[in-house]
């Protein structure tokens, strides 16, 4: 498979002097066309920053990021992003949100009547793919959190982006809704075939969705380990209980704990307990 995104020795420094923080240091990674890569790691490991750099929303201070062998220059419609929340336009209905990119100049250039028709058809198709047909004319604030994220995903897909970037998109959803969304996004990935980079703090989610899980470590933000997920391409919820899945989950969780730089101080806990009992 050909390389879609090539991250080469990327570094990112925030601030200067005493406030200088090295958010990313020498990060290199190739993501193949149509691959599904998830990023996990302790807080401060720079996983969101890396995603935002690929999206062009943040600039890197060292190295190169290439998409289709082209250096990225700021955000673009070829790399759509789905955020955790607050990204839908509350003044537009669900349908209008999904069609938003059609209102932009980029979406209007050299448009024939047939294109407009096709776009309308695509919006309808996305609506039904996401199970939103009944909610087409609703406003976002009439929808549950899970439904709102479906709209956000449909809206991002509308412009047929080659890369879909997702920054903890299901982080605010409850566990049941999240499971439904997992199978939905896998379905979307099979159908639309975007290259998918997905940041999460949920290791189970990371394994279940991905071809590869990239574990990042903080201070400075860097890639620590890359895990190939030993599961068949077609995922099913039952796979979460297989020994392969569980042992990989255990391994990744342990590694995140090791790299986080935070340890539970048993001595301190005992001391607190002691004080509690004497008072």
């Amino acid at each position: 498979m050909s390389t879609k995104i090539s991250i080469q020795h990327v570094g990112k420094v925030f601030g200067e002097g005493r406030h200088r923080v090295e958010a990313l240091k020498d990060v290199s990674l190739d993501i193949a066309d149509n691959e599904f890569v998830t990023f996990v790691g302790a807080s401060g490991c720079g996983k969101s920053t890396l995603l935002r750099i690929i999206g062009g929303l943040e600039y890197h201070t060292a190295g190169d990021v290439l998409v289709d062998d082209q250096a990225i220059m700021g955000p673009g419609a070829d790399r759509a992003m789905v955020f955790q929340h607050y990204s839908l336009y509350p003044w537009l209905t669900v349908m209008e949100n999904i069609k938003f990119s059609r209102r932009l100049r980029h979406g209007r250039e050299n448009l024939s009547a047939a294109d407009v028709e096709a776009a309308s058809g695509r919006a309808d198709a996305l609506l039904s793919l996401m199970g939103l047909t009944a909610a087409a004319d609703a406003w976002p604030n009439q929808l549950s959190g899970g439904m709102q994220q479906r709209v956000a995903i449909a809206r991002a897909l509308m412009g047929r982006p080659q890369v879909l970037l997702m920054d903890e998109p299901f982080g605010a959803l409850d566990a049941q809704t999240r499971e439904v969304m997992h199978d939905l996004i896998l379905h979307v990935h099979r159908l639309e075939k975007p290259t998918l980079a997905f940041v999460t703090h949920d290791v189970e989610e990371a394994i279940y969705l991905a071809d590869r899980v990239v574990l990042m470590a903080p201070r400075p933000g860097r890639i620590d380990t890359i895990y190939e997920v030993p599961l068949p391409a077609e995922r099913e919820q039952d796979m979460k209980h297989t020994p392969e899945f569980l042992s990989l989950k255990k391994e990744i969780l342990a590694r995140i704990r090791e790299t986080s730089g935070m340890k539970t101080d048993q001595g301190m806990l005992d001391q607190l307990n002691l004080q509690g009992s004497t008072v």
Partner: protein
Amino acid sequence: MQSRPSTRPRRPGMWAIRGPLSRRQYWLFAALGLLVPLGLWWGVSSGAAVDKVFLPGPVDVFNRLVTWFTEDDLMSDMGISIYRVTTGFLISAVIALPLALMIGTFRPVQAVLEPLTDFIRYMPAVAFIPLVMLWVGIEESSKISIIFIGTFFQMVLMMAEDVRRVPLAQIEAAQTMGAQKGETISLVIFQAAKPALLDTLRVTMGWAWTYLVVAELVAANSGLGYSILKAQRFLQTDKIFVGIILIGLIGLVMDQLFRLAHRKAFPWLHLRS
């Protein structure tokens, strides 16, 4: 013997912290809040010890309202005052809006304009009267200018804050869908800030009215503020009362009109849950 006390917690009463209040109770209390002061006013003013010049009663004030309307052309006083306030307010809004969009969107514009605006807004509008007379003259435009000075600088700062509060995710989502700079401003930032901007207009409209009396200090010969000032000279306390109450009522009506416009323009914010 008494019945056994219930073991279930009872429905919280209206005096529980943040307790419930039914619609009927609400209007009952609201009526109480309006009628008690009115009754007190009536009671105190009808006492023999109180001079009418010092405190006219509700009946005197109502009679004055009627004579002002029938003999002294109340409607033209109200008309000219409403004209001055709304004109000053509209000019202020038309200039403030684009400036606020720029301040809230581009940091250099913010750096240039915000400290300056912050500085000017603390200057008392009354103190500008001599300058306004010198520069603008004593025509209608001078009164409008005072209203403008009183509202504009506050308005810019509040509107800029409204613009800044647009969630970054909404802006960035547009950028990753290919929105250009101008499209992001007009299709996202402005649209997202609209409800807050209308609220700011509603609040600043109230402030514009508070500058009416000040504005009509400048060589006016009509208007509610002017009438209040003139009544002061002739110790027509009842007329002062009428003027103040009318300004309050007009303000209340305008406020309600803004709220109505808000409900009509932004229905998704007023859904019944």
